[in-house]
């Protein structure tokens, strides 16, 4: 780390501290938590793009799978729902996987030709209808159990923090499957494929109500250990005493303590991820990855298994994103599939990676913290800019029109700042060495 980078980090730190002083510490910490989560996701993306040149725009999907893990692990069980068709659904899914395996077997074992195509078609068609016949009734049964408040199979009721690694695992599994299919695609073609797959993940989450209630949302997911609820703190005698001893007001003390606890949890994960990826990057493994990124043909001729390595880094990066996605959902305390939109969960992360400087882990972290801050702060800054602009104007239709449009300054301001930052450092704030 050189002076310039330290300075940049100091600058970002100053932004947060400034928010704390001039706005409120609650807001600053709230943004910080989001910034930390985004930084972790940005690290995941940076592994894929910065190290290996994989243009993954499916971040949203992996983050959502992480969120799903929280539901599966931590949501209270729904024994009724499960009894109504839980096993049926599992059987159906297992059968579905069996059909896919059978189809790939047919494809691999049989000779190319009409016979193979016919066999394939038969397996898939019969398989599909059989699968629907197995799966649909159970789904209907589960979803009809108390649909307004449940209608799903429920979770395991385990501590929420366990869902983080599971989020990573779910995302990794999905990434493996996706990678197997689509990593042969190049650059923007891979991008649109992964973008589409992420949309598919969200569509499934939205429509498979038995899984996590779909668009009806899962709310009230428990917090991860060791984060307490503010209301509980506010009622705990010990805490009240502690707060009083420092002269804090119990409400703000409790809200701040909770946020600091989250921040610490996230920071630990972030540091671990940075440590692992820095070590990996500055090693023969990282060198191999960069060689693949620079020139796949030559890397293959030099004995590097490009496909396998692509898959490896795709899975790892996605797992990191899934991990962060689980962390985010468990902090929010709810899974709302409608929240997942590509702008926020995919392209914003990309902005972080690029503005930070792709190929550089510290860049990704810086980008995550900076853009995360921006994204949330423009909500109040944008309209503020508008009021400054309009303050000089005379009363009239135009002025009132502009004041009404103030909310749209949010994204406009974000865009302008983004362009300014990129102008100031076209290769990212902390470019790859």
């Amino acid at each position, binding site marked *: 780390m050189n002076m310039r980078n330290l300075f940049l980090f100091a600058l970002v730190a100053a932004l947060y501290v400034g928010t704390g002083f001039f706005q409120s510490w609650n807001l600053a910490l709230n943004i910080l938590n989001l910034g930390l989560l985004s930084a972790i996701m940005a690290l995941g993306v940076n592994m894929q793009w910065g190290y290996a040149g994989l243009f993954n725009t499916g971040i949203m999907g992996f983050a959502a799978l992480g969120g799903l893990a929280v539901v599966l692990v931590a949501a209270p069980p729904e024994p009724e729902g499960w009894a109504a068709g839980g096993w049926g659904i599992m059987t159906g899914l297992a059968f579905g996987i069996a059909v896919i395996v059978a189809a790939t077997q047919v494809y691999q074992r049989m000779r190319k030709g009409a016979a193979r195509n016919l066999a394939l078609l038969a397996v898939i068609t019969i398989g599909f209808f059989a699968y629907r016949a197995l799966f649909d009734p159970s789904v209907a049964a589960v979803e009809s159990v108390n649909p307004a408040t449940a209608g799903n199979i429920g979770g395991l009721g385990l501590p929420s923090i366990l869902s983080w690694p599971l989020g990573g695992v779910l995302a990794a599994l999905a990434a493996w499957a996706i990678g197997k299919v689509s990593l042969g695609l190049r650059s923007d073609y891979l991008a649109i494929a992964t973008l589409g797959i992420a949309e598919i993940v969200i569509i499934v989450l939205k429509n498979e109500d038995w899984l996590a209630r779909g668009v009806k949302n899962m709310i009230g997911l428990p917090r991860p250990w060791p984060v307490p609820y503010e209301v509980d703190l506010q009622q705990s005698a010990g805490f009240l005493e502690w707060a009083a001893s420092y002269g804090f007001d119990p409400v703000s003390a409790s809200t701040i303590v909770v946020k600091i606890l989250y921040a610490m949890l996230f920071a630990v994960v972030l540091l671990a991820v940075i440590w692992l990826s820095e070590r990996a990057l500055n090693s023969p493994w990282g060198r191999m990855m960069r060689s693949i990124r620079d020139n796949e043909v030559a890397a293959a001729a030099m004995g590097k298994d490009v496909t396998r390595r692509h898959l490896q880094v795709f899975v790892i990066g996605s797992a990191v994103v899934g991990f962060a996605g689980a962390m985010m959902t468990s902090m929010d305390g*709810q899974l709302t599939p409608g*929240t997942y939109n590509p702008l926020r969960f995919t392209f914003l992360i990309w902005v972080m990676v690029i503005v930070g400087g792709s190929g550089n882990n510290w860049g990704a972290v810086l980008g995550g913290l900076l853009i995360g801050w921006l994204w949330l702060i423009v909500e109040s800054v944008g309209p503020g800019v508008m009021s400054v602009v309009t303050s000089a104007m005379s009363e009239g239709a135009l002025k009132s029109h502009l004041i009404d449009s103030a909310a749209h300054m949010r994204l406009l301001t974000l865009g302008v700042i983004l362009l300014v930052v990129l102008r100031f450092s076209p290769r990212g704030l902390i470019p790859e060495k």
Partner: protein
Amino acid sequence: EDAKIGIILGFTGPLESITPSMAASAELAIKEVSDSGKFMGGGTVTSVRADSTCIDASAATAAAERLITVEGVNAIMGADCSGVTGSVLQNVARPNGIGMISPSATSPGLSDAEDDGLFFRTSPSDARQGEVVAEILTDRGVKSIAVSYTNNDYGKGLSDSIAAAFEAKGGKVTANTAHEDGKADYSAEVATLASAGGDVLVVAGYVDQGGKGIIQASLDTGAFDTFYLPDGMYGESLIEAIGSGLDGTYGTIPGTDSEGAAKFAELATAAGFDPTSSFTGESYDAAALMLLAMAAAKSTDSKDWITKVMDVANAPGEKIEPGQLGHALELIAAGTDIDYVGATAVELIGNGESAGSFREFTVTDGAFVTDGFR
């Protein structure tokens, strides 16, 4: 004593076209109270807007965080969409002990959410509307319906309850499928609905979103010519956009046989926004209720005023309509009980949500004509 109200709605994002009217509506109530000079011994009420984005829970919580910890608001009017509303409630309102009244979060799930008594809504839970819709349809002799709903908790919850209630009454639901708002094209949805057939197409969506697109495409292709419009679909803009094709279509919106709605319409028109835009009445009521509750509690502190919301909203007491907020404050100061009726005839029940009485209307000659109330 002065009060400050935070208005958190999705000014950008998928609902950006209805939220300005909702905010203006809430501000109208706030201004009315403030200008009356009778709020808590001459206090003024100010408001501050924040953007919930409707879909981005993190942005919404950060914005709410700002309202509470930076702006120091005493109450939150919002949020709009159920998803972010739940998030703001759990992550900001409850921890900080700030009361919130949402004008439009209608998900049934919110009824059971843990809220420490902080959360109210001036719109009915979707579960209730379904009953009414089914009743009206059967009364009109409809045998089969197709349902297209906007794919969120509102649409899904509503369509499920409509379908269940209608089938319970012996009707047939030929199709019950979702449409995503803000998409480019709805041909596939309409094709499927047309194939399914049915006497009436129930469109549980939003008037300026996919719902409109579905109706437009259905009329264009001749798939359906009668539609049922639940609350989200009620709006003059629909008639303007579709024209005479809409004649004969009917539906429901929350409301009672009160003059409140008409009064509100006058006020809104005077203030320069469209009173028929979705959830404007609810927004006015939400803001009015929290201020009246503060007055009744003689405190702007959330933990005090939330205990009074039900009192001012419900009978017994003198009925209060839009435009009478000053009068209401006088009554409260005098210790007289009030029953806030407002623009949408709010009656809060059980968990602090609107009871949901509904106005039934038919589109006749390019206008919404009230048929009756249920």
